[in-house]
């Protein structure tokens, strides 16, 4: 244990995902030895992002306005909706430039171990959109891991019950790998080869 502010910094850094105690220490001492202006810039970036960025009220993508750039873009196909777990998955798909519809971000996947049930995801809002908007096809692009598969399976059942055509992007993706890490080529192919459920 260190004293006062140093330990506070280590503790806070250690709470970030993927940062263990060792890395937290390394990051803390890196910041302590950095120029004061560098530290201020980082602190400002964190605060600004936190204050200015919010979630799109329609699709739950990150956005600086009430609605995100994609939801506001009239050139996007409003009839096709792609469902992803996190905003970063949306970014991965955007980079492939293969998909011209709009998105819906769930905010995670169903995971009983972590106490995450369907009610903790933006599924109710998805169903409301299907009711309100003119959507004729839903593409499920949850991650190709067990939780993503279970979430897709859950959604497929619900959507089919209300009569919306559903497809799942083909997992030519590494088993157990996150969509985020899939290279763009693989993802592009996956879109071309999506299968109807």
């Amino acid at each position, binding site marked *: 244990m260190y004293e006062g502010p140093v330990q506070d910094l280590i503790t806070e850094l250690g709470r970030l995902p993927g940062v263990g105690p060792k890395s937290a220490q390394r990051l803390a001492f890196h910041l302590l030895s950095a120029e004061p202006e560098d530290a201020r810039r980082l602190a400002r970036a964190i605060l600004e992002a936190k204050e200015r960025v919010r979630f799109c009220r329609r699709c739950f993508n990150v956005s600086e306005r009430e609605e995100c750039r994609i939801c506001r873009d009239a050139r996007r196909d409003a009839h096709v909706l792609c469902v992803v777990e996190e905003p970063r998955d949306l970014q991965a798909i955007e980079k492939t430039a293969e998909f011209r519809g709009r998105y819906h971000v769930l905010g995670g996947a*169903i*995971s*009983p*171990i972590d106490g995450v*049930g*369907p009610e903790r995801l933006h599924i109710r809002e998805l169903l409301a959109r299907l009711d309100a908007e003119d959507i004729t096809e839903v593409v499920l692009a949850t991650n190709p*891991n*067990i*939780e993503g*598969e*279970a*979430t897709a*399976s*859950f959604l497929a*059942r*619900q959507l089919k019950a209300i009569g919306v055509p559903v497809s799942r992007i083909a997992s030519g993706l590494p*088993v*157990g790998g996150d969509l985020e890490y899939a290279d763009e080529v693989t993802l592009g192919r996956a879109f071309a080869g999506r299968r109807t459920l």
Partner: protein
Amino acid sequence: MPLERLELVDYRSFRHVRLDLGAGAHVLVGPNAQGKTNLLEAVHVLGTGSSHRVAGEGPLVRSGARAAIVRAVCVLADERRLTVELELRPGDRSRARVDGQPRRARDAIGLVRSVLFAPEDVSLVRGDPADRRRFLDDLLGQRRPSYLVARQEYERALRQRNALLRHAGRDGPTEATLAAWTETLVRAGAPLLAARVAAVHALSGPAADAYRELVTDGGSAGARLGLTYQLSTGRAVPGRVGAGVPEPVSLGDELRAGLAAAAGDERQRGMTLAGPHRDELRLDIGGLPARGYASHGETWSLALALRLGCLAVLSEVGEEPVVLLDDVFAELDETRRARLARRCGDYEQVLVTAAVDEDVPLRGRRHEVRRDAAPHGAAEPGAGSRKATEA
């Protein structure tokens, strides 16, 4: 794929040991607890990533050292040399090199193939169903590493579904959530079931042949070894030579139906009651269950026959594995020793350990494994017999 050379650094009690090998039979001789088994274990670790005796890397590293290195040079079927090096670092990720190039450990593990028979293997006959499930899973994983990925996926689905059922008491999962996890479990489980049944079919012939050869001289009907895959949902699938891979979709349907039938019990007990994690590999000799009926000698022969059967299944895809026999000859009577020795003559390479050389009626090179080390434990190739020395 015979090993040409095996080298260990800071592995168990060895500071540095080098063994020059080559195709054919090799007998590692030395008093008990002198590290002969450690040599075979090291080859097994290279093939599977873990020891057959202990969990974790810690015990494999010489006390006082930070890491252990296992290095093997083997000769492939096309006569190319392959050098695989695995560095085991307790508490840290293992490192590996293949032909000198850094690789992820999991990409290097399994390149040097082997089949190990050790005294612990009597648990294949006498142990719990879990021991026999692991036997099938290890075999399939060695055959194709993607099987291990599929098994991990299944285990993850199982843990999730169990968590859901466990918390069902108070709020109760909605039917829809449970249905989604049932579907996910079935989809993850079906390929496993198909692979396991296929392995039992593939194994049934070679294992029965090996068993018959070890216990009799002819084809006595009473000594027939039978393998059966017993599904948790009730159906038993007898191993049939040449039967191939069953259709995963129909096995999935069967599992789905089994889960539906167990639904009430599952909610009450808070766990998944059907699936590959509750299946069993049944072994019988002449129609009687081996567990409970087999004598000491039959038990040993059966366990050995299962391992030798694996050799045939693995050789179907890729290089012929190195056969590792740890202390097996001492447990067999003289006739069975002779029969095993005869069979060993058919293998590309066999490494055998024995406390007493006379126990092993095998022609082949002798390597003395002992503690009286040369300076710094460097190995000394002797004339005629070679020495593996321990520091």
